């Protein structure tokens, strides 16, 4: 019975099949967010903000009120929602194109205002929905459709570490980077997500959880190869763990 319960669909997930590609990390992240919202008992006072890109589907997947934002504009939309609904939990869900490229100014300023919102930031080192272009987070040497011979720093700049960029801002209360490559890492990631949302509920400041996530389709790998690539290439560069958790009361 216990085993069966563990695989039940959280109430915060709508009864629709995921359309994420096989082996994509988004499915795990989306489910973890739903589980945490259920466990905190906040589903009816949570509003999610969906981005443009692969994660646009969370508009349908989450079973709580959702708002679909323009590309990169999740943070200001979340800001407007939070100011109008201060007793609600506002959850943004974005990829690396939306948050780290076109929406970078928006996330920096939301973080700097200490906006009481939580961003789930899925970094798979590539633009997924548009079929594999270079993202700000693409690793050096990584081949994409727009860096066919590999990302070259003199031409393309360096991969962007968003957590470290934001951690220095005073409005930021909680920042962590996790991944989905093993059951242990998934459990740790879930703990980060819970702490980030609690940070918002405790009115402590801006919170963000980055997830290093595989994209087998656009990396042109099998799912297991993609998981190995996250572990062998992404984790050594980006690192895992809580980058800033200085104001947690809990």
């Amino acid at each position, binding site marked *: 019975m216990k085993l069966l319960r563990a695989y039940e669909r959280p109430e915060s997930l709508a009864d629709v099949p995921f359309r994420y590609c096989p082996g994509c990390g988004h499915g795990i992240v989306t489910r973890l967010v739903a589980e945490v919202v259920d466990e905190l008992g906040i589903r009816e006072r949570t509003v999610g903000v969906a981005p443009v890109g692969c994660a646009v589907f969370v508009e349908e997947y*989450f079973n709580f009120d959702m708002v679909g934002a323009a590309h990169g504009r999740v943070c200001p939309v979340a800001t407007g*929602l939070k100011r109008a609904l201060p007793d609600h939990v506002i959850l943004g869900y974005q990829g690396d194109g939306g948050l780290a490229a076109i929406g970078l100014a928006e996330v920096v300023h939301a973080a700097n205002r200490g906006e009481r919102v939580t961003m789930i930031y899925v970094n798979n080192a590539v633009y997924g929905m548009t079929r594999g272009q270079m993202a700000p987070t693409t690793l050096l040497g990584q081949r994409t459709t727009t860096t066919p011979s590999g990302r070259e720093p003199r031409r393309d700049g360096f991969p962007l570490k968003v957590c470290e960029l934001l951690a220095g801002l005073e409005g930021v209360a909680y920042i962590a980077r996790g991944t989905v490559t093993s059951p242990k890492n998934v459990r740790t990631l879930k703990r980060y997500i819970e702490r980030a949302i609690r940070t918002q509920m405790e009115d402590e400041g801006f919170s963000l959880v980055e997830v290093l996530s595989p994209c087998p389709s656009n990396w042109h790998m099998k799912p297991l190869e993609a998981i190995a690539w996250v572990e062998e290439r992404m984790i050594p560069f980006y690192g895992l763990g809580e980058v800033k958790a200085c104001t947690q009361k809990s």
Partner: protein
Amino acid sequence: MGERTLMKGNEALGEAAVRAGCRFYFGYPITPQNELTAYMAKRMDEVGGVFLQSESEVAAINMIYGASAAGVRAMTSSSGPGISLMQEGISYLAGAELPCVIVNVMRGGPGLGNIAPSQGDYFQATRGGGHGDYRTIVLAPYRVQEMADLTTLAFYLADKYRTPVVVLVDAVLGQMMEPVEFGELDLPPLPPKDWTVGYMMGRPKRLVTSLHLAPGALERHNLHLKEKYERIESEEVRWEGVCLEDAEVVLVAYGTSARVCLGAVRKGRREGRKVGLFRPITLWPFPWKALREVAERVKAILVVEMSLGQLVEDVRLAVEGRCPVHLLGRPGGGVPTVREVSERVGETLDGGGDEVVESL
């Protein structure tokens, strides 16, 4: 009606917004609308509302999007360059059917242009500078009292039709002082906001979005929007006529240009010239039908605008060749004078008849 107070146009607009129940203002500094931001910052503090100076106009319009999705009355203001940055957000607001009020205190363009009064954003406002098939209601006040009244109306129409409403003014109106009274407009009750996010309390989840991926879904949504726009066009056209009954030449102008034209009508009438004024108050929906009827019985129309031939295009579409349409356009911060307009009226009456649309 309340007491008459002397106020700047920008401040009267802000006060009307507060009285209309707007408690959420998001904006970024730009001249010539800074009095409005300063006024809103002060008043939001006093009434317990939210004033947030955003990091950009892009952010401001998206904050409006979020606040509006939660069901509150929200407003932003800017001028041409900032309004250009907001166009993406306005398209999303129109698509997601979110009400809000956007004030454009127009300055000279293109580009950085200057900070002088202009009406060069007429196309941007009435045609929608953003992408996709959409419309926004555009209200054009021409004196400080109307800046207040049309702002009240803007919030009402935004909620009634679930659509962004643009209040289009220029730097002259924004910064001039006139007496204003804040009264209650007699407006019918609004439909309940049964689409907003937050406070689920047992109901099914709601989704506010402009995305319609399923086959045929976007076309259905577009047709739904079209039906709404047609309803607006049939119910919300507003315009004002001055001395139209026996007019031989009719001036068509809005905003500051209309004030100048009013002076020219008075001067012309004193001098025995049969001149009248047709002033669109809603630039969209444009008063096509009313203007067409006027065009049936006049010798000529003279369009006066602080831009180089934008309003005149709608006038020509309305007139459909029923009478000659002339243009007096002053761009880049130039404001037409009563003398200029009067001279052109004289030329039109004496030698008019050609259909050449010309600019100054």
